[in-house]
């Protein structure tokens, strides 16, 4: 069994980095697009300083639309878009496209609910002091929601690790792909167990790291 593990190590190593790449890229996209989107959902809400029913509705519908499609279907549905964007439909980079599309609304909703945890009075006090909307977002909402934003990112990362296994099945590579190829198609239990253990360790580590950072930035 140990021989088999050693034998599979190079492939496992590649798969691990492919997973990290997919999750990393989509997490980055989630921060770049999902975070502002979530803030937008929050500040355009009723009673807030940028209240805007129309924007709130449109963004809300887009987010719900993507979130209502099961990931495995989204994966197939986005193949033409992936092809147009990356000129290929296989490999971790191609898989990152649909992972990112799924990550954006996922994180946006988490950001929105993290921002909602802030006492509205704190935001009102900033409005009363004459702060501009951008300043309130940057200097009040963002730091106040930081612990929630970080634990939200942890949740997103762990979900993405799970999703990346599905992406593996359509040629995305990564640990999930390895597990399916050897464990499912070839009945190679050793590889399957190894990948499962790697995934468990990875998820535990991400969770621990996320909790640690979230705690460190929490001043409450």
């Amino acid at each position: 069994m140990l021989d088999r593990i050693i034998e599979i190590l190079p492939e496992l190593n590649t798969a691990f980095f492919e997973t990290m790449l997919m999750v990393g890229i989509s997490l980055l996209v989630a921060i770049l697009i999902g975070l502002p989107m979530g803030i937008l959902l929050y500040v355009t809400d009723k009673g807030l300083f940028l209240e805007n029913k129309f924007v709130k509705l449109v963004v809300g519908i887009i987010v719900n639309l993507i979130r209502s499609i099961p990931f495995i279907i989204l994966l197939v549905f986005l193949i033409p878009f992936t092809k147009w964007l990356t000129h290929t439909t296989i490999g971790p980079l191609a898989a990152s496209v649909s992972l990112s599309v799924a990550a954006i609304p996922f994180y946006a909703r988490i950001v929105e609910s993290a921002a909602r945890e802030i006492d509205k009075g704190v935001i009102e006090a900033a409005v009363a002091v004459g702060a501009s909307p951008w300043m309130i977002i940057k200097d009040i909402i963002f730091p106040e929601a930081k612990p929630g934003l970080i634990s939200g990112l942890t949740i997103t990362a762990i979900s993405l690790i799970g999703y990346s296994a599905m992406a593996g099945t359509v040629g995305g590579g990564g640990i999930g792909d390895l597990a399916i190829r050897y464990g499912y198609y070839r009945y190679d239990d050793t590889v399957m167990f190894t990948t499962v253990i790697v995934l468990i360790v990875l998820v535990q580590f991400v969770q621990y790291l996320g909790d640690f950072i979230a705690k460190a930035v929490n001043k409450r």
Partner: protein
Amino acid sequence: MITVEKVSKVFKTKAGLVNGVENVSLSINKGEIYGIVGYSGAGKSTLLRCMNILERPTTGKVWIDGVDLLGLSSKELRGARQSIGMIFQGFYLVSSKTVFENVAFALKAAGVPKSKRKNRVLELLELVGLREKANDYPVQLSGGQKQRVSIARALANNPKVLLCDEATSALDPGTTKSILKLLKKINQELGITIVIITHEMEVVKEICNRCAVMQDGRVIEEGSTYEIFANPTEPLTKAFIQTVLSFELPAKLLDNCTGTLMRLQFRGDIAGEAVVSDMLQSFPVRGNILHGKVEYIGETPLGIFIMEMTGERTAIDKAVAYLKERVNQLEVIQHA
């Protein structure tokens, strides 16, 4: 300094339209401490929030220092708000910022360059007595200290007006006193006009020059604090006054009372005791003070006594007539 003209605020709720504030007009003078009292739901908080347009009045006008706040663009309004400080019952400090950063944020919002912020923040913390707490986070502070920080934040941009929304309601009586003292100092030393919303008549008695009583979105009574305390006309006002000037006599005492019971009120410089002793020497009656106290409304004393008078009815009537001319108010509660 503050003029509120025919302001109404209508809220849309599931139950239909609700009048938060109804046709209120007020004029608050420069340098004044003005109190607005009422039970919760009376609309006083909404009225206050209309004064810096945190709540946009449905109809009416609001001027602060000659500026028509409702005629401003949102950018101009932000500028105007920098000269209107506001503090809240819940303090609303930013928990992820230190005391220093909380105060500095107000300066940043007003576009004060970073280099100039530090001295000003320390100056403000000195004023509220929290200089050594500059690097603490709000969670490390007591309620009174939090309110001091929020006062420092509200004063950061040298406002002309300070709006206080139930600023002492979450504090214990001792801390309330010290915060009120601080507000008074700010009013006297910096000349800032202060508007205080409260349900505690004690607060009004302590520091307000004038006050208004609100009920169901309307101002039902308004005047100098002394007048309101000495001569309340509306039942609600009387109820509020009673929370401070309570003269409840035990029922047993009233039952055993054999003479005429009366309530005397002395204002300002009239020495109550001398008038009573003069009366007792002039008429063949006996007087027995059952209850009495002198309250200082601001600086002016207001004395109230409950007296039992025994003797011939005709003598009592004469004594009452004598007193009526010399005291500010005399009310016969019950005859023998």
